[in-house]
């Protein structure tokens, strides 16, 4: 069976005064109903991958490779065809739901919008459906909520509103872009729980973009760790995060509070001028000479792939 989403050697470059290679040669796939996580620090390119999949990159971005969704290459689609995929085929949930909602439109209107755009439903019909969707997410007074503006709702409410709006068309794939960023622990658990429930109930595949390893561990079947625009390690979530192979993954896991809060020395490299050889070598304690000159390839190590010469 072909996967629901198959990303093949995706590279994204932002043209500007200086070209920024944000994502390089990323390959990754997701089966129907599967939950996968892209993990990494801010600026590692994981959100760019998500945006590339959803076709949300700004006009200045040069994308190469292929993104096969349900067998179709999304990168080859015309803008109009892509519009049909967004929302109906792929739903996206952003971090900071209060900013993702238009402050000048009511909650109801924004939840109903996909119905009206994709199915051309009449206003009353769409609003009724939106109301049901909100109620299904546990809002007691869904009709009242419909009339509120995002500024009148709490962050948690907006989070669920966004979820409702993104899933109202039942897309087979949901991309959650840093859904837990900036939230306190309790809320993180809420959000994670909700996403998990949603995926479980509807059988939606979920591509989770996060820097939050516990969340990834809790939700994801499979995980890919990104560093400086590349995937450095990928495999079953429990294996990769429970017993990391790549020095970077190890560092990430070691920096978790429960593991002693040991930070990785140094800082992420500039995407304009990434280091030669292994991109992690300047921060790597296992670095040898070859690491500085030769770029390692992703190599299979059991059920996972690792981009490191030193560790299979």
């Amino acid at each position, binding site marked *: 069976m072909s996967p629901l989403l198959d990303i093949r050697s995706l590279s994204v470059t932002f043209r500007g005064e200086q070209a920024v290679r944000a994502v390089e040669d990323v390959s990754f796939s997701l089966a129907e109903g599967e939950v996968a996580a892209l993990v990494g620090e801010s600026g590692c390119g994981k959100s760019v991958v998500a945006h590339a999949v*959803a076709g*949300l990159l700004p*006009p200045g971005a040069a994308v190469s490779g292929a993104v096969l969704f349900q067998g179709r290459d999304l990168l080859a689609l015309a*803008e*109009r065809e892509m*519009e*049909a*995929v*967004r*929302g*109906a085929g792929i*739903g*996206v949930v*952003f971090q*900071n739901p209060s*900013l*993702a*909602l*238009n*402050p*000048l*439109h009511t909650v109801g209107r924004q939840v109903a*919008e*996909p119905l009206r*755009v*994709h199915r051309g439903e009449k206003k009353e019909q769409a609003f009724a459906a939106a109301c049901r969707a909100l109620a299904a997410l546990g809002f007691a007074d869904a009709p009242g909520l419909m009339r509120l*503006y995002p*500024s*009148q709702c709490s962050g948690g409410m907006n989070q669920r509103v*966004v979820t409702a*709006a*993104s899933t109202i068309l039942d897309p087979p794939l949901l991309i959650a872009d840093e859904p837990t960023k900036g939230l306190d622990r309790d809320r993180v658990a809420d959000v994670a729980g909700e996403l998990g429930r949603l995926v479980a109930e509807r059988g939606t595949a979920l591509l989770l973009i996060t820097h939050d390893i516990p969340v990834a561990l809790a939700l994801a079947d499979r995980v890919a760790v990104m560093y400086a625009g590349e995937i450095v390690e990928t495999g079953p979530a429990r294996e990769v995060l429970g017993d990391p192979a790549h020095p970077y993954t190890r560092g990430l896991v070691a920096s978790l509070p429960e593991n002693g809060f040991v930070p990785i020395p140094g800082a992420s490299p500039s995407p304009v001028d990434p280091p030669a050889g292994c991109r992690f070598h300047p921060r790597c304690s296992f670095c040898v000479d070859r690491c500085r000159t030769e770029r390692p390839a992703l190599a299979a190590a059991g059920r996972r792939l690792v981009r490191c010469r030193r560790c299979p």
Partner: protein
Amino acid sequence: MTGLLAKGIRYAVSLLVVVVLTFALPRAMPGDPVMNIIGEDVSVSPATLDAIRAEIGLDRPVTEQFASYLWSLLHLDLGYSYHLSAPVFDLLVARMGWTLLFTGIAIVVGAAIGILAGTVAGWRPETKRSRAVTLAALAVSCTPPYFLALLFLSFFSFRLGLFPFKGLYDEATFGSVVHHLFLPVLVLTLFAAARNTLIMRGSVVQEKGSLYALYARARGLSDRAVLFGHVLKNASLPIVTLIALDFGFIFSGALFVEIVFSLNGMGTLIYDAVLGRDYPLLQGAFLVIAVMVVCANLAADLVYLLVDPRIRRQGQ
């Protein structure tokens, strides 16, 4: 609530400052304050002069003078123009109608055009068309209003003979008024549009990068739908305040346009007052314009209150 209150206080203070300015100007400026109140280049009988001297009572304490000044303001008494032999308030009211008419049209049409052009220019700022629009708007807003008016007058009226040379009308008919006001309104509209275009462009550039716009796209909305359904409305909000602030500017532009097109509005009234040193009229005009600008700002705040739920929430 506190936000609104602070705004209210600011407007009240603005008004007060304007009133104090108009009160203080004739007293603080060089020359005889009585002559400053009457204006120069005008013949007044000694009896009138004495009457004015007694009325303003320069020997009385300033507070007392100010109180009586306020008192007369409250009765819409802005003084008397000895040049035009009429109360300043009456003169201004008589002239204001026309000026408000064509500035009003210019502001509304200019805002509409500006919002549209600015949206186009801001949505894809890197295209040739956007650059052209931006550059044109920049050029227009960098031209002194009177010069543009002169160019239009000399080209369309003088050279092509398409429009009349002076006046608001020949016969007081609708067609005649439209014919006479077309060019002045066009010039003012261009200015309003150019300024709004630049603002709107910046606003759109900012708003289209915001998360809600991206999220709207993520829900499958087309570019057009995102632009017109979401970004446009949000980006237009700052325009509301700017139109209010610009009201004063457009009004000043109207002054020059009236002079160039020989229109009998408030601008020519002020111009004549400048040439004839008709100080009471000048101060009255300044006061009235300032009050109108403050009112426009107040109105803008109210519009904001209606349009922007965030502020409404604050107000509750």
